[in-house]
């Protein structure tokens, strides 16, 4: 964590495309997300069959109570959503490169039990589509980051972005049209 860099300031830096802003935001949020991942898997070991939004939500809340920097839930959720998108795209690209480069897909425990179809391709396609619609309306990008990449509910998204639930619902529907069209183009 860069000492006590303000999350709000980081988000603003990112919006104005300041170089290195994303790296700094990832650095700030990654430890919290990793802890969240541990909580999730800890839950799994106790018998949860699948990761659930309930756990994610609970973990957010617990991180927030445990760490003064995250006392503003809005900022945390927004930052987490942006970083999740970045990490998901990065991870998908990495896996894609491994596949192309190595010829053989490295078999790891992480991939066991998951569908073989490439969700990574979908993530990369969605990221591309998102860049396109951000030009039309930056709110769409924020909503999709929260709803889709961070898996937040409509009401959490509304909270995080300071919008009304109705606005989120309406704009989510609008964004969904573009996203699914992008996926369709990927798998005609």
């Amino acid at each position, binding site marked *: 964590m860069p000492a006590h860099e303000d999350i709000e300031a980081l988000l603003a830096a990112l919006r104005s495309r300041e170089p290195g802003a994303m790296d700094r935001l990832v650095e700030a949020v990654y430890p919290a997300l990793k802890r969240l991942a541990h909580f999730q898997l800890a839950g799994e070991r106790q018998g949860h069959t699948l990761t659930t939004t309930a756990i994610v939500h609970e973990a957010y809340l617990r991180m927030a109570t445990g760490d003064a920097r995250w006392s503003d839930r809005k900022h945390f959720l927004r930052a987490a959503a942006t970083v999740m998108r970045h990490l998901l795209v990065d*991870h998908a690209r990495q896996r894609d490169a491994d596949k192309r480069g190595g010829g053989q897909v490295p078999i790891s425990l992480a991939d066991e039990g998951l569908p073989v179809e490439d969700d990574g391709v979908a993530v990369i396609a969605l990221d591309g589509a998102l860049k396109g619609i951000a030009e039309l309306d930056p709110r769409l990008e924020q909503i999709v980051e929260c709803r889709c990449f961070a898996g937040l509910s409509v009401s959490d998204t509304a909270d995080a972005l300071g919008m009304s639930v109705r606005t989120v619902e309406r704009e989510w529907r609008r964004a969904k049209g573009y996203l699914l069209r992008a996926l369709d183009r990927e798998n005609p």
Partner: protein
Amino acid sequence: MNAARARLLDEVYVQALGLKGRDRRAFLARRCGEDGELRREVLALLVAADASDDRLEWPVGTARERLWRAMTQADAGSQEDLAGQLIGGWRIGEKVSRGGLASVYRARCERGGRARSAAFKVLRRGLDTDDVIARFRAERQILASLHHPSIARMLDAGALADGRPFIVMEFVDGEPITAHCENRGVDTAGRLRLLVEVLRALHHAHLHRVVHRDVKPSNVLVSRDGKVVLLDFGIAKLLAADGASGASSLTGAGTSLLTPGYASPEQYSGQPVTTASDVYQAGLMLYELLTGERPFEGKPADCGFAVPLPSTALRGTSRHDAVRGDLDAITRKATQVDIAARYASADEMARDLLRHLDGRPVLATRDALRDRLRWLEPRKPWLTTAIAVAAAGAAAWVASETA
């Protein structure tokens, strides 16, 4: 598509989204005119906009899960190992297990004369957030307040140089109660006696205002010499003086830490968790000890909390008749969804099990009979009495015949 075209498309799309049926069709015909390409693209977007969110949740949800695993695996690679170190007079041995939040090592005391084997439990690095540390400290405080032969004893506690707290517990060389019973072919009476020990340990904790909240076979070990030890007060909590759980941040974490398939209805619904929750979980364990399977195994998630009767699971086996009746009734009374209908305490459940073992009438059966006759009461009180008299007569007759 150029930017101007994309904006035009979006404009028509957004307006059409706000319209339905005929209005929408008329609007598109008017707005797109000869531009068939525009119309087709808007229609495709409209169809996609009304599709289920699941179409996105599948790929992205999967990608998220992959990412979580990758994140924790990278972390697991750099796992610390304290083996060999000397911490607070304890020589750390091999790592026994790595739970979600804590690692457990074997350890030996190097102070004093007698070498003592112990379990050294320390919070994992990177997870030492304030709330987790608070929970760990709470476990320490709870363990310090409990002294019972069937509750794993705390031998020592302290903190590593980096501030992470540790707890040293008595090392229990044993296996989970269900595995112990299966592997050694323990008979039904033996199983019930083990459960009585568990209930006594729980009752001791309850008297100290401690609710375990995670009573399940993997937290109840039976040592080689047959001693029952209740483990893992990691999500236990201290009750407020009035007996109900308060709304501290510590309890707030409780709902997400429940074990599906073993949680009580009140844990699922986020209601205050009291000692009755431990009684419920003891009831589930009784079911599992009797039948060898978990009550909700393979059941749909929405099957409710009505625990099936153990004898139903044993139908067609030689143990069916031994379980039907008293043990069905005891399981049912312990696992009532209505807290008030359960045993009032773990001790009361223990005493009912002992009554059954002694061949005396059990509380639960009496209650079940009363419930069954209740429908008669308001309208036909005489009938209840008549049935009771007839039953007593029949019992007397049976008794005189068999005497």
